[in-house]
């Protein structure tokens, strides 16, 4: 397959400036055909701006955007074969659900009856057929959400853009919709570009994630990449919970880096490109990669004292005071309590980790 068929959206050196303020600093990324791609970052990181540039609502200050090989950054939104699911759905309040879904089809030249027939099929797909004669205000948030989805999918866009579509829903509904969206993407085979600030949502649904902050892309990779091998402090801290330790790199031999942290503790972990001997960097260790024992094990072990146990349903969070070192957060899954030990507060114990659990970060 050539690039033209393979790459759905190609953003090349795109810059967005509002007067003196730079919202997006030279971003390049290629989103593959049939991919569930997520732009993830805190508010104000530029993720929505980038999505709106692809949709055509924001002009591109510099650079270019290609849609399956065609340059589109100068086309108005109504000339781009991409559709958007808006954050607050933006359903037309004066039209029925059926007419909302039929709107895009009609605009693409279908006759009114044909458009309505196709729209009815779309409503069936999202299981809202019985509501087709109602107005949007008569539907619940979750139902409106599905109408917005049906409306955007009806004209069969080449790429579907989703701007935080689940943020207005409650937790349970959000979880259900996450799966529904993922299934819909697989069934239709349409490329989805999904914007969210919710890292869990991003990890659940995406094939690949671009983590953004302050108008820059921090890391691009699969959910596993981003979670297990964060590139820098921002990514490690933003995605999931982690222990961030300040370490000095003492030596690197055959892919292993020996580091020490405050209090004379020593740790060995995998070396990372860009982190050299003698540098002072941060190490990220996920709480669930740690486990406790009453005697040092053959793995990496650090001596400490339990400060507090916090029960959070699915797991137990233990806060450990490393003597002369930073506090550690250790997470033990509730289902693991048979194999792994929980210590009472005040008990002295050892915190252990596998060799690969610690990850050195490029600052």
């Amino acid at each position, binding site marked *: 397959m050539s690039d033209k068929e393979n790459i759905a959206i190609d953003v090349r050196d795109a810059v967005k400036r509002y007067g003196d303020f730079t919202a997006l600093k030279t971003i390049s990324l290629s989103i593959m055909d049939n991919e569930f791609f997520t732009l993830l970052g805190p508010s104000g990181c530029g993720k929505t701006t980038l999505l709106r540039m692809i*949709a055509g*609502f924001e002009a591109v200050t510099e650079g270019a955007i290609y849609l399956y090989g065609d340059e589109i950054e100068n086309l108005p939104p109504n000339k781009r074969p991409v559709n958007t699911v808006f954050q607050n759905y*933006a359903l*037309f*309040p*004066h039209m029925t659900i059926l007419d909302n879904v039929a*709107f895009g089809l009609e605009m693409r030249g279908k006759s009114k009856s044909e458009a309505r027939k196709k729209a009815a099929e779309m409503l069936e797909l999202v299981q809202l057929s019985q509501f087709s004669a109602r*107005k949007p205000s008569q539907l619940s948030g979750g139902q409106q959400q599905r109408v917005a989805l049906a409306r955007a999918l009806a004209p069969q866009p080449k790429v579907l853009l989703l701007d935080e579509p689940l943020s207005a829903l409650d937790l349970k509904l959000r979880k259900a919709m996450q799966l529904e969206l993922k299934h819909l993407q697989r069934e239709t085979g349409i490329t989805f570009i999904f914007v969210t600030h919710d890292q869990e949502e991003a990890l659940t649904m995406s094939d690949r994630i671009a983590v953004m902050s302050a108008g820059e892309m921090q890391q691009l990779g699969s959910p596993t990449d981003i979670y297990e091998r964060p590139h820098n402090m921002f990514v490690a801290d933003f995605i999931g919970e982690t222990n961030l330790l300040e370490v000095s790199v003492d030596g690197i031999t055959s892919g292993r880096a020996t580091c020490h942290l405050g209090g004379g503790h020593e740790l060995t972990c995998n070396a990372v490109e860009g982190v050299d001997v003698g540098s002072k960097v941060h190490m990220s260790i996920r709480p669930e990669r740690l486990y406790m024992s009453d005697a040092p094990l053959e793995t990496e072990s650090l001596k400490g004292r339990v400060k507090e146990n916090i029960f959070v349903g699915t797991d137990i969070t233990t806060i450990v005071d490393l003597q002369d070192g930073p506090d550690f957060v250790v997470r033990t899954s509730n289902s693991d309590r048979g194999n792994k030990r929980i210590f009472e507060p005040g008990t002295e114990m050892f915190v252990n980790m596998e060799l690969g659990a610690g990850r050195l970060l490029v600052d």
Partner: protein
Amino acid sequence: MAAGAASGGSATTDTYKEARTWLLLPAWVTLAILVLAPVIMMLIYSFLTKEFRGGVIWEFSLAAYDQFFFDRGLFGDDPAKIEWTYITIFWRSIWQAGAATLLSLVIGFPTAYFIATRSENMRPVWVFLITIPYWVNLLIRTVSMKFLLRDQGPLNDFLMNIGLIDSPLHIVNTNFAVQLGLFYSYLPFMVLPIYAAVERYNFALSEAAADLYASKWTTLRRVLLPAVKPGVFAGCILVFVPSMGSFLAPDLLGGAKNFMIGSLIEEQFKGNAGNWPFGAAASMILLTMVLIILMFSTRQQAKADKAGG
């Protein structure tokens, strides 16, 4: 207040009800004095007999209404024919007011849209600018307009100087001048309600329409207009109704040929030549007409809403 009434039991509710009656009294009195009383007076006067030097004789008579609709010859003893004079004036008033309303809509809608799409701190400034001309008395503004538009006025001078026309355009004393005058008098009443509606409009809807391949024109017609329709409707009523009864613009800019209902009524109460019962009857007919038009258009509006745009 509602919460207090609910939680405080019946005693509080009663106190509240009593207080409400007394607090609303000034509003009712004002309404009675300023709205109800004049209309009742007008209704009574329209059924009285005219006194020749103005005023009325307190004797029941249908003469005023009869004079409006029927022609019974110079001495009043010919067989009754339909009197077209006043009906024509009425008809002219309706379509002059309609034309002025349309003109206000065409100019007022883009103006309101422009203001509503400015930054939040600039909007009040633009609204303020719109109202500035209305600090000057309407009479003075209308007379000034006559001077601006007349054959030797600045407008014709300018158009001739730039070579667009060879001889002055006769604008004053035409229907068009009247429409222009009405339009200028009532434009803010069109702009302000539409502005209020567009300001509340969710512009994401326009984006959604564009995203779904609608052109700008289609977006305006199918999404923006239906959403701001109540504002447009209010603006049209607020321009149409006072235009119907207006007499300054038709008098000063239209001349005798373009007589409107407002002038006709005004004449009846001026000096000694007037006919008070006839003026009152014409006013009652105007009031009835306006009410019928309002009821009709409100019903149409409600029907359109129900049908789902």
